[in-house]
Structure formats: C-alpha cells, structure tokens
C-alpha cells in the first residue's frame, strides 16, 4: 500500500507541477466565460437596426398598412415602402449590394389570401431577424384577415395576447426551482465536462504509461511493484488531478455565475442567460460525481492498456481513436436524450456501460431516472469497470515490457490469457 501511495503521489505532484495544469485550471473557466461572453456579444449584434423596403404589389391599402404596422411593431426595423413595378427589384438588389438597405419584402394580394410573401436580403442567415420578421408578419396578416371579415379590432387584439410559458422542473414531487432552460444547461454542461475530463485524464494516464515504457523506468518499477499496483496508482493519481481541476472549474463557474447575475441584475435589461449558473440539487451532483468516477476508471484503464501496447506517442494517439469515438457517441446524442429523456434511445444509453457515464447524468439532468434503472445502470457500469480493469491489467502487464510492433487483436487475446 505504501508503494501504491508513492505512485499516486508522484502522478499527482508531477502533474500539478506542470505549467499546463495551471494554464488549464485557470484558463478553463476564463475560456468558458469568454465563449459565453462572445456568444452574448454576437447575440447583441444580431439585434441591430435593419433597413428594409416593402415592395407593395397589392391592389388594396394593405401594403401601406403593413409598412406602418411593421415599423411600429419592431422599432429596430426601419421600413420604407415603394410601389412595385418593372425594374424595382433590380434597383433594390443593387441597393442591398451597396449596403444601402438590408433587404426587401415582396408583398402582393396573394399574401392575405394564400399567406405567401418573399423576403430578399443580405441578412437572411440571421435567425433572430427572420424569426422576428416572420412572426410579426404572421400576426399582422392574421389581424388583417380577421378585420377584413369585420371582427372588432379590440377582439382581435385580445385574441393576440401571447402566452408566456413558465417552465419549472418537478423532481421527487417537488419544485426544484430549476427552469427548463437551466435543465438544458445543466445537461449540456455535464456532457461537456464529463467528455472533456474523462478524455483528457484518460489520455494523461496513457502518456504516463508510455513515458515509463519508453524511458524503461518501468523495468525497475515492475521489479518492486506488481504491474497492477502500478496501474492502479497511476489511474488514481491522474484521476485525483482531474477531480481537483473539475472542482476548481465548477467552483469558479459558481462564483463567476453569481457575479454575472449580480452584474446582470444591477444593469437594466434582460438577464444574460449564459451567465446564470443553474441551481444543482444534491442528487444531481451525486449522480454526476458517481458516473464521473466510474466512467473515469473505466476509460483510464482502457487508456492504460492502450499506452502499454504502443511504443511511441504517435502510435498511441492512433490506437486511442476508437476509444475516443466510443465516448463521443453519448456526447453527441446529449441533445436527443434531453429532448426525450424516457425514449428507448435514452434508456439504452443509460444501460450500456461505455456510454452511461455521459448519458446517465445528462438524462438525469433532464428528468430523474427511475431508481431501478439507475441502480441497474450503476451495477452494469461497476461490473464493467471491474472486468475491463482486469483485462486492461493483463494487457498492461505484458505490454509494458514489450517492444517491437504493436500487437494485433489475436495477440492481445493471447496476452490476456497468458498473464
């Protein structure tokens, strides 16, 4: 035990001492804040002034009315009207090219009857602009149609009072105080953190194994410790570093989130969503921590074996690609899981041990997993961790002393059997 402890400490201290650890630990949260800030900045940019022209091809007063209504409904749209005619579209097109206007809306009688209209502009890729334009048009046309049938304007206005849906998450029969948006961010954040940390520290274990192999230090080590002790020490040591880094990240995100919220509430206007650190219930945190630990041990053991069977950094990087791909599957399906946390896909992802470390916490973030399913998922994962560690230790034991060409699958099976 004393010997294993020495390995754990070396792994931890040597990693924490590197410049990269500190850069990663400090820069990680800053980077996150930076990305969120950048996105907010871009979102803010998107809400700028737009100049557009309504090309009125109607035979009624609808075109004039629409221009006025559009202008008053969306103040940031500066709307002018021009009558349709030959060559008008070309002229406006040239204006868009010259950036005199952002775009123009082609309106004729068909709009009221069939709901057809066309917008041409340089800002069609802006989701915010187009959504606002489309929804405003829908509302205006809706009102115009009703009024055409002689419905009272007041009634029409009342009919158009929009719904503001407040979303609150219920968990364990209680309100969690978590909004739908926060649920999403919790799930998303967990998926990113789990993926990044498991991958990063798994790869760390791999390069650490490889370093001992290429420098041949391993020969002295293996003559004093059992290979299994060495592997376990390495995995635990590197994992401890990951845990520290994760704690720093989550802690600083919480602090920064608090600061952000205070900043946001002190300045007038909407609260920037990105800065809000979601309230995480203890159960969610426990699920996250449990799956992180088990997931990390699972992948770290695999990475240790990959390191042991490779001879160079380049070879190892190549050999770990399949491992990375497997871990990527639950990461990429986090959106589907959040969309429908009780779908068949989500349930399977929770049960398959190579995916559950990411899929289960994400699913939990969206909706608590039934206790039986959760227990089953954890038992399967734990059994897999033990099994994989056993196999990995055997590959590791033979691999660390081998040089020469990388073994193929058949040889690997022989290693596992022989050890």
């Amino acid at each position, binding site marked *: 035990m*004393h*010997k294993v402890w*020495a*390995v754990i400490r*070396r792994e931890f*201290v*040597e990693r924490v001492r590197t410049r990269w650890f500190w850069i990663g630990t400090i820069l990680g949260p800053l980077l996150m804040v930076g990305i969120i800030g950048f996105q907010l900045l871009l979102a803010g940019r998107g809400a700028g002034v737009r100049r557009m022209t309504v090309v009125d091809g109607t035979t009624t007063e609808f075109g004039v009315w629409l221009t006025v209504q559009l202008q008053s409904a969306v103040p940031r749209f500066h709307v002018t009207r021009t009558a349709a005619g030959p060559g008008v579209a070309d002229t406006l097109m040239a204006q868009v090219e010259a950036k005199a206007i952002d775009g123009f809306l082609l309106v004729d009688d068909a709009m009221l009857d069939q709901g057809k209209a066309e917008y041409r502009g340089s800002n069609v890729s802006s989701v915010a602009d187009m959504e606002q334009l489309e929804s405003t048009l829908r509302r205006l046309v809706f009102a115009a149609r009703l009024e055409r049938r002689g419905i009272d304007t007041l009634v029409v206005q009342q009919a158009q009072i929009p719904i503001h849906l407040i979303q609150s998450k219920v968990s364990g029969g209680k309100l969690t105080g978590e909004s739908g948006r926060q649920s999403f961010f919790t799930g998303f954040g967990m998926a990113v953190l789990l993926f990044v940390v498991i991958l990063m520290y798994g790869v760390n274990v791999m390069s650490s194994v490889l*370093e*001992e192999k*290429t*420098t*041949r*230090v391993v*020969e*002295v*080590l*293996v*003559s*004093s*410790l*059992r290979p299994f002790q060495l592997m376990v020490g390495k995995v635990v040591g590197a994992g401890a570093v990951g845990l520290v880094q994760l704690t720093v990240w989550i802690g600083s995100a919480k602090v920064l989130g608090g600061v952000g919220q205070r900043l946001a509430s002190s300045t007038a206007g909407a609260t920037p969503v990105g800065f809000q650190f979601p309230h995480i219930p203890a159960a969610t945190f426990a699920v996250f921590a449990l799956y992180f630990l088990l997931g990390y041990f699972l992948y770290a053991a695999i990475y240790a074996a990959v390191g042991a069977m490779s001879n160079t950094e380049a070879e190892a990087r190549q050999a770990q690609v399949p491992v990375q791909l497997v871990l990527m599957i639950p990461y990429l399906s986090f959106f589907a899981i959040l969309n429908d946390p009780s779908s068949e896909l989500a349930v399977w992802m929770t049960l398959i041990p190579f995916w559950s470390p990411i899929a289960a916490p994400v699913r939990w973030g969206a909706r608590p997993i039934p206790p039986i399913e959760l227990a089953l998922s954890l038992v399967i994962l734990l059994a897999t961790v033990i099994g994989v560690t056993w196999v990995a230790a055997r590959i590791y034991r*033979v691999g660390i*002393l*081998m*040089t*020469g*060409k990388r*073994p193929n699958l058949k*040889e690997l099976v*022989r*290693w596992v059997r*022989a050890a």
Partner: protein
Amino acid sequence: MSEAVVAVDHVTKRFAGHTAVDALSISVPSGVIYGLLGPNGAGKTTTIRMIMDIYEPDAGSVRLFGNAGGGGRAHSERIGYLPEERGLYPRMRVLDVLVFLAEAKGMQRRAARTKATEWLERLGLADWRLRKVSELSKGMQQKVQFISTILHDPDLVILDEPFSGLDPVNSQVLRDTVVDWRRRGKTILFSTHIMEHAEKLCDQLCIIARGKKLVDGLLSAVKQTHGGKHVTVAFDGAAGSAASVLADRRLVAKADDYGHYAELELAAGADPQEILRGLVSAGARLTKFELVEPTLNKIFIDLVGPDAARAAAVPETPVRA
C-alpha cells in the same frame, strides 16, 4: 558456505519460437561478486529478469535470501537492481526521482530524502538535485542511476551489463563501488559479455550460452580446470634439438617458435612435465618454463566461440511473449 543469497533452480523461459533460458541453475553465495557471463543473446537478461520477478519462469524456481517462493519483488527493499536498459523520468527533478524510486522499493520517504541528498553530495551532484533529469549530462544521469540502485542500502545488488555505455570515469566509480560493497558484506550479481571486467572483479562466475550453463564455480577453479594448457619457454643460446620436442604432436598442439622464445599450446591430455623433461634431455638451456594461466577471455572464447556468432542473431530482449 552459508545459504545462497540467490538460488536459481532449473529455470526455463520460453518465448515464441525459442528457449531463452534452458533449465539453468545458479547459486550465488553471500558476500561475493558473482559474474553471469555469456555472449549477446545467451539469456543473461532473461535470467536476471526472472530473479527480479519481472518474468515468471515457465519451469523451475527462484529463491532469494533462502526464502522459498519469494522473488525479487517481495524483497525489493533488500535488492538494488540496475537494468540493462536504463532510464529515469526526464521531466522529474533529480531528488524527486531518487526519493520516488526508493519509496517504490518500500523505503520511507524521509529516510529516502536524507540518503539521496547524501549520495548526491558524495558524487558531486548536490547542486543539481533540484534540476530536471533531462538537464543533466549523460554521465551525470548514469550517476543518478547508480544512486537509485543502492540508495536503500540493499544486501544484494544485481547489475545487468553495468559497464555498457559508461564513460571511463563512471566505469571506475562503479568498479570501486562494487569492490567497496563486497568489503561491506554485500552480495553482487552482475552480467557482462566483457571478460576483462569479469576477470578483475569476479569471485565466482557462471558462463552461459544459448540459455544453458557451460561452466560455473570460483574464478580460480574455472581457470584451473580450463587452463594450464599453455606453456611459455625461453632458451639461453642454443636450443639444441628442442625443435623436435616442440614438433611432437602428441605433446604440443601448436607452437609459436621465436627462436629464443616459444609459446606452446599443449595437446589434449599432454603433461607439461613431460615436455620439460624432453626439453632438458634434448640439451636445451632453459631460462624460463612457465605454465601460463589463460585469460578468462580465452576460456570464454574456447567455450562459446562457435556459438557466439549464431547466438548473436537471437535478440536478447524478446519481442513478443
């Protein structure tokens, strides 16, 4: 003789395609310098790795310090091991590497620190103890490696090809250290294919080739058994009819005659005394008649000569289990 410190009993290790060590037995008594000699690919490193518990023998057993079933790992606190392929963590500080390697062998951290500092001072590396290993010269790294081998004051020191790659200064440091260890009652087992080192250092030795033992025992005994077959003769003035004696193929297998001086290789079973009588009765005036003890190198080449070339083609470190 006390219980053997290292008792290797009929160990065999096979790797895919060839037998690296074949039913080899060696016994290293306490307090001696024991040489494990053989050409490249003879199985020296494999034998040492089995002693150190790095490989498990396919057959046979290894006993250390008289304990049944206890290989190198169980006794790591009492064994210093310098592998043939040496290496340290290049990015670690010198002192930290030494402390870690000592801890891995079971030494307490604080004691390891003190000892490491002492040794670094003794070998003139005190100023480097907080530097990274990669900043050290090759010679300095070799010194750090020695220190890591003996820091925990082991009773048994196992050195695999310790002189390979050493600069002359470190080579001398190592030789002195080895002799000093024996003086302090330690047991040293080392492998080499360079016979000059073995001849100067060994008390006992074992020569192996292709995984099999060819000869073992005390250096003097080996020399006696395999030596005594060379005679140097010097004449004063006329050699008389000595030439006829030297030409007698029943007595002399080969003679290098320089006129006043001749080196003779005796024929198998020939008695040097008979040659002496023959020379005297032939009227030669002898100023010198000496039975020459052959060098270990000569014995080695005689024993493994035809083998060496073939064995060298087999890699010493197996590529695949």
